[in-house]
């Protein structure tokens, strides 16, 4: 029996880990909070609750940071300072009256632009929805507000979620705070970059085929893709209804868990939302100094071998050759660390996805409503058919990604092709789900990179849709199976220019096993020490602020 490790030994282990992965950056700050959960959300919440700071002060500070970083990053499509400050003032006055404002009292949060916000423009990154102001809040947004959170604004995204780099936004690209010559990933790139740059404490994203996890990986933040049906889709502008999930992006596992606890749960407005009761996902997360020496003892994990395994029958799925060495190395380091924490790590296999047939078929149908008749932009025309063509061309055709995907989806559902494409894809989907669930019967979690590369350069892949589709291969099967996953930083990969970019590890858990999964991620995060490096954008403005 091993004696419990002290905090000191964890710190050593952490340094060891990061040293293995890359040289420790000079400006790395360790901000682990002993005795309470780690993350700015918990810190802010505690401060507000103790009246150490006010919601207004917090909101003002984050708005200042938001605007200062925004010129370089372009994370937001809409920010309403006045509205945010009014919300904050309201919370302060309620706190002053001794009211229990909720678990996210005063926490400044950003919302991906495909989640409806009452009174605040919601475009899903599309010109076609320019000017659309929802009359209602998405359920996830309404629950955040009810929990006391302050919504700062709407974050940029690839149009309707179709893209993996935020370069396919109908409005603007967003840049990666780690290196603004690189993309933040997508489609929730605006949310991930905003969290990384500390423009907000946490953000909502959505994940149809990796849209939370891949940008979280690219931006070095924590992203949670919950089980399908764990969070209501009501108010989420649909991309592929049977795959879409709303989830949190935050700076720590504990912060993400706190947000997920608030937004999860059954909803009468979404018939596909689960009735299962929601746990407090932060309840099982222990502060660092409460952890035992082998906190992952008896945990069985599996590394998806195509992602980065050794001695593997390469080429079977075509995955392995697209994973770059830096990512493989970071993952290998993470695996060693998990083993040191007591986990057994084996290897498992995955099969290629049929994701796109299903996603694009549903998308072609979901996007039919953007016809210019009831909302959004209407094209000028002299008769009906031309009105449709003009509205849809100018609104949806602005990004070739969208037009291409609608065409592909329409084709897959057409008479004569349905059986070969959509129906076949659904059959394969059933197999994928069965196999992943079987694997999760044997293992507590599966792990693989959230993306085969680190954040690529702006423009590098925008002309090569196929390579971008390939990039999704790490994440899409999970959506087909409806399973939950956490993506969290597991190291860095050095670039030629000398700037290190974060690598994200994806931990895949059992359906509705978010609590266990977050516990695992939290233990890894608390002991690995790779979470605390700040992107340059933040450091500049933050130091300016503290001068």
């Amino acid at each position: 029996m091993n004696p419990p490790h002290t905090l000191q030994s964890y710190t050593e282990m952490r340094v060891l880990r990061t040293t293995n992965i890359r040289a420790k950056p000079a400006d790395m700050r360790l901000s682990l909070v002993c005795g309470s959960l780690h993350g700015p959300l918990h810190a802010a919440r505690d401060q507000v609750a103790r009246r150490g700071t006010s919601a207004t002060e917090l909101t003002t500070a984050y708005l200042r940071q938001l605007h200062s970083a925004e010129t370089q990053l372009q994370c937001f499509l809409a920010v309403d300072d006045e509205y945010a400050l009014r919300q904050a003032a309201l919370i302060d006055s309620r706190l002053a009256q001794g009211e229990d404002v909720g678990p996210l009292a005063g926490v400044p949060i950003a919302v991906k632009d495909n989640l409806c916000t009452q009174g605040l423009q919601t475009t899903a990154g599309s010109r076609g929805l320019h000017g659309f102001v929802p009359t209602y809040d998405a359920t996830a947004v309404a629950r955040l507000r009810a929990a006391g959170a302050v919504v700062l604004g709407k974050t940029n995204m690839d149009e309707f979620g179709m893209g993996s780099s935020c370069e396919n936004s109908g409005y603007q690209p967003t840049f990666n705070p780690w290196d603004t010559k690189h993309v933040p990933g997508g489609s929730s790139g605006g949310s991930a970059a905003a969290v990384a740059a500390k423009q907000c404490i946490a953000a909502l994203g959505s994940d149809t085929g990796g849209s939370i996890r891949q940008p979280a990986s690219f931006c070095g933040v924590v992203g949670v893709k919950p089980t399908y049906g764990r969070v209501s889709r009501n108010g989420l502008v649909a991309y592929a209804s049977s795959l879409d999930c709303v989830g949190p992006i935050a700076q720590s596992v504990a912060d993400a868990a706190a947000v997920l606890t608030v937004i999860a749960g059954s909803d009468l407005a979404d018939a596909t939302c689960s009735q299962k009761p929601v746990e407090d996902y932060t309840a099982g997360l222990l502060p660092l100094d409460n952890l035992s020496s082998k906190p992952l003892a008896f945990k069985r994990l599996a590394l998806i071998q195509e992602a980065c395994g050794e001695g593997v029958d390469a080429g079977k799925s075509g995955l392995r050759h697209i994973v770059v060495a830096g990512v493989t190395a970071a993952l290998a380091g993470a695996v060693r660390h998990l083993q040191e924490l007591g986990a057994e790590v084996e290897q498992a296999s995955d099969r290629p996805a049929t994701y796109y047939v299903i996603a694009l078929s549903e998308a072609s149908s979901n996007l039919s409503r953007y016809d210019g008749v009831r909302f959004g932009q209407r094209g000028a025309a002299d008769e009906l058919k031309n009105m449709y063509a003009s509205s849809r061309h100018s609104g949806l055709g602005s990004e070739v990604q969208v037009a291409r995907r609608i065409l592909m989806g329409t084709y897959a559902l057409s008479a004569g092709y349905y059986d070969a494409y959509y129906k076949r894809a659904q059959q394969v989907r059933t197999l994928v789900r069965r196999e992943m669930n079987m694997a999760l019967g044997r293992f507590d979690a599966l792990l693989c990179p959230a993306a085969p590369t680190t954040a690529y350069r702006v423009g590098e892949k925008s002309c090569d849709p196929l390579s971008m589709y390939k990039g999704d291969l790490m994440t899409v099967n999970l959506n087909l199976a409806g399973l939950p996953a956490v993506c969290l930083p597991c190291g860095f990969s050095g670039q030629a220019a000398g700037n290190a970019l974060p690598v994200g590890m994806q931990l895949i858990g059992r359906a509705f096993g978010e609590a266990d999964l977050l516990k695992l991620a939290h233990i890894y995060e608390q002991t690995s020490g790779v979470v605390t490096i700040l992107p340059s954008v933040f450091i500049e403005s933050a130091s300016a602020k503290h001068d």
Partner: protein
Amino acid sequence: MTYYSMGMQVVRCCSRAGVPGPCTRQWAVQLRSLAATGACRRASSGTCTAALRNVAAAASAAGVATDGASISSSSSSTSTQPAAKVDYEAVIGIETHVQLSTKTKAFCSCASEFGAEPNSNICPVCLGHPGTLPVLNADVVRKGVLAGLALDATICLSSKFDRKQYFYPDLPKGYQISQYDVPLCEGGWVEVVVPDSGAGTSVRRIGITRAHLEEDAGKLVHGGAASLSGSDYSLVDFNRAGVPLLEIVSEPDLRTGAEAAAYGAEMRRIMRFLGVSDGNMAEGSMRCDVNISVRPRGRAAFGTKVEIKNMNSFNAMQRAIEFEIVRQVDALEGGREGEVVQETRLWDEGRQCTYSMRKKEGLADYRYFPEPDLPELTLTEAYVQELRASMPELPRQLRERLLGLGLSQYDVLVLSDDAEVAAYFDAVLAAGAPAKPAANWVMGDVMAHCKEVRLGWEQLAARMAPAALAEMISLIEDGTISGKIGKDVLPALLAGEGGAGGGSVRALVEARGLVQISDPAALAAIVDGVLAANSKQLQAYREGKTKLQGFFVGAVMKESKGRANPKELNRILMQRLAAPPS
């Protein structure tokens, strides 16, 4: 940021000048085909010429087509040639859209009422706003299952919803939520009573293929003109968007317009008896699309199928079918097979003809796929059994029961046509009235009154309690008053003066001095008085002018103010006329 508008939604549509053709309505619906297929084609409008030629023929053929399945081409020909040798029969199937009378729409909580201010019953869900999701209304399922059980269909314990996709401004999401390959109800039949050319009826069983749930679309209103072609903009009213429908598809078992009309009427009756729909065709809560082809009798293969829409009564449906049978037979006989093509035709009520709306070149591709926003619809056997146990009496069962009471076929059909009439009639029986006189009163003066003053039968019951009518009938039966007096008293009962029966009607007739005079002595006194006052006529009678009997009856009635018991009066009068008093 002001594009969001919950008011009347404006869509600019076709305003091409010089649209030819007498039947402008086709333009409105033609837009659907343009948008759905993406093809820019103009439907032919020339077919009305051919149709017109047949209007007169249709009228003459109607009789033939009504009383049997046989349509010989000679009946529709204007030539004087003898009957052609080929005997044709029509093959008809009907798709009925029944609007389920739920309080709220199928997938949102908007009110599902008819005739509200345009776009007053709408919300982000039924407008298809981004991010909205459908949530199935449990009452839609309940009413759908009840209807399925009434049609003796198999209720699928596990069915699903699909998206039927096409573009049209009245379809908010760009797809309609419907059920494609796994409907709620499969198989079934309905019993149809078809009046034949004489006074008789025949009973047929029409197969039901399936019945499935779906949502309705909105309604286009064309500005500046009655139809889209003359207007330069169109408005969309989304009140109807998302209203629940049950689409019932019949087997191609029908052969004549009369059968089709009887099928439609029975279908409406069933829905009304169940309380699942008001079946009001004029308000669009029941709509029938007819598929019809003709073939030489005895041939198994179907002819080319034509779809007819836009009939707003069963009568119109019958006439449209009869017109179409004649048109098709005429074309085939005349060697113009090319005039019968797979197409959708609309019934023009004003001109009494069908005209081509759009040709169908292959099936439209609606790209059906399972609706991912709705989980499978799973029902338990217990749920279905519970609904089965709660089923009210159906029209067919009611007809059997009434026939069992000894009523005539005609009486049964009239009384069972409407659940409210039947309920009132049953209440009169329950209060003790015998069936036949009760039927006569309900179907006669009472029904006439309801029609005249547009009174519903439930309102009627509130004024004239069924027990009051029953008491009046018993007063007639026991001779307290005559049938004639009954008719005189009825207005008072209809005004509520009969109370709840059980003695109050007797009190009323007594108070008004209307009780029949049956006492022989009293009657004899009146008769004697009349005879004495009319001795000339009495003389004439006794000399052989026996026709004067009526005169004496009338005189006695007048003298008794109509209260003389006719039977007793006759007996005494005949006695006195035959033998002078000693």
